[in-house]
């Protein structure tokens, strides 16, 4: 077997193992719930039968292993169980399943919104950071390079909500050109949706762009010292030709890795930004569910975030492996 295929397969195997472990960790969270939890969810009026029925629905009468198998096979079919909200004030002997919504129905429209926002950000942020990175490598140590570098260093250490509110202050309040509430829904037309998502996407772009841009610049500058670039310079190639034609192709691997890594970071940034702009995505849903301790929804959101994060990191690693010339052309 080609060594690259082997390394990739091993990495995929680790990825699957991580996914399994993460699902176990998120599932077992419910094991640590305090004993009076059912009472808190079902309200003061819950009868012993109600509590028993609720415990049965959660599967607390079965072993942890069979509960995990039930849960994960449901998740694989897209069934995350039903929400805990709206279960209070019951007098009958049911656990109130009929009165609460399916978690999957809650999540589906919001997941699309979140993916839309993340996708929009990626479309803006990736080309912009590549452009900034390449140009600042080209005009290294110029005023332009210093300005880009100082700006990116400062935005990298700002909290997301600070960036968000500064943008709101400028574009929403002092010079009101963009809407500050991103309340989109399925019926919002595309142009309107783009306009309302503009500020959240700008915030996320500012948050993730710095790291990608700096990596691009560093990857290219690292290569500039290598002999084949010296050769290209001596042969009379212009500065931009050297960087774009000779250095860039060899810099793709670290750049691609850092892009995938930052898209994974987007997953976390999206939670705070959605709350600031009241954007109806799963980040906001998750925070609301944490406050109301709606565990099935929290678990489902966490699983979606974690899987996205793991898969993007896996892609980053695999790109790193398959573009590594030492592995591609073994001696």
């Amino acid at each position, binding site marked *: 077997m080609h060594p690259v295929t082997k390394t990739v397969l091993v990495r995929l195997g680790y990825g699957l193992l991580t996914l399994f472990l993460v699902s176990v960790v998120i599932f077992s969270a419910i094991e640590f719930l305090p004993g009076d939890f059912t009472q808190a969810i079902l309200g003061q009026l819950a009868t012993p039968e109600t509590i028993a029925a609720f415990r049965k629905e959660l599967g607390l009468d079965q072993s942890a292993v069979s509960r995990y198998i039930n849960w994960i096979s449901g998740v694989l079919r897209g069934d995350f169980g039903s929400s805990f909200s709206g279960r209070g004030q019951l007098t009958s002997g049911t656990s109130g399943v009929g009165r609460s919504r399916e978690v999957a129905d809650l999540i589906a429209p919001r997941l699309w919104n979140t993916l839309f926002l993340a996708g929009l950000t990626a479309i803006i942020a990736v080309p912009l950071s590549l452009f900034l990175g390449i140009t600042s490598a080209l005009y290294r140590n110029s005023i332009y390079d210093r300005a880009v570098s100082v700006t990116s260093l400062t935005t990298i250490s700002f909290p997301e*909500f*600070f960036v968000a509110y500064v943008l709101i202050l400028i574009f929403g*309040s002092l010079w009101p050109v963009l809407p500050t509430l991103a309340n989109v829904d399925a019926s919002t037309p595309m142009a309107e949706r783009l306009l309302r998502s503009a500020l959240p996407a700008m915030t996320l772009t500012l948050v993730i762009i710095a790291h990608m841009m700096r990596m691009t610049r560093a990857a290219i500058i690292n290569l500039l010292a290598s002999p084949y670039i010296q050769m290209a310079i001596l042969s009379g190639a212009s500065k931009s030709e050297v960087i774009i034609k000779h250095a860039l192709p060899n810099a793709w691997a670290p750049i691609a890795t850092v892009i995938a890594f930052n898209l994974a970071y987007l997953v976390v940034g999206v939670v705070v930004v959605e709350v600031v702009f009241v954007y109806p995505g799963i980040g906001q849903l998750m925070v609301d569910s944490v406050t109301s*301790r709606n565990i099935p929804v929290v678990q489902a959101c966490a699983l979606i975030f*974690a899987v996205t994060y793991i898969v993007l990191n896996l892609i980053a690693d695999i790109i790193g492996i398959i573009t590594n010339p030492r592995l591609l052309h073994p001696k």
Partner: protein
Amino acid sequence: MKKGSENYSAVAETGAVLEKRSTWQRFVLDLKKSPISARFGLIVIAIYIFIAVFAPWLAPYGESQVFPAPYEPWSKEFIFGTDQIGRDILSRMIYGARNTVGIAVATTALAFFIGGVLGLAAAIAKGWVDQLLSRLVDALMAIPSLIFALVLLSIFGTNIINLIIIIAILDSTRVFRLTRAVSLNVVVMDFVEAARLRGEGLAWIMRREILPNILPPLIAEFGLRFCFVFLTIAALSFLGVGIQPPTADWGSMVRENASLIQFAQYDIKAGLTPLLPAAAIALLTVAVNFVVDWFLHKTSGIKDEQ
């Protein structure tokens, strides 16, 4: 020693008492050579510490003292106005320095204790202990920490003790990785082997043989981890699941006063009010980053690329 000096003797030079510089003298010397960004960072950090320590003397009013007028504009009486239930914002900012920074420092210290001890233990013990801990850490690190913190907070409920323990444990995974990686290089050294043959216990080897040799990267990491923890706690408080009211905290203050921002057109000062605590967070993070940057350059001798 001048070359042409007549009564030069090599014996006298080597025999002369070498005066060792004290830690403070070395610090002052380093400071004289430090770049402007590091000096700026150190001054900012010193100011924050001063405010945090002397908060009760500096604040004009009490932490949760309520005045009858909510959303009071900036004035002589209330320098930054009052918040949504009429508490003085300046006083809450000053107390917030104590709460937000204090909790972040405590969390980072706990994370370093857990991660550092386990990382050292894994590096020294090797074998199945190392495997078990490393795989556990891999699994924990695979979940984004803000998301994992949200899951755990929803299970255990939101209070300050839970917050500190949860973030510390999640963050100790990063400390574990670093400690393990740097101590693996030291563990193979002869002097460690000598200590082991001498019959020293695990705790001695950790503390006296390895720790002094891995300190510089750990101190730099402490600064970076602090920034990360500080931002995570601020984000959680901002989301309403971190530090709970009435405790003054910068993250929740941003959220509480966020609606003032829409009045910026009519009164720019009112619009700036919610940004003050956010700016306080940002300024401290930038300052710590500057100092860590300088420290890393100083201890590792990393040079700028080209």
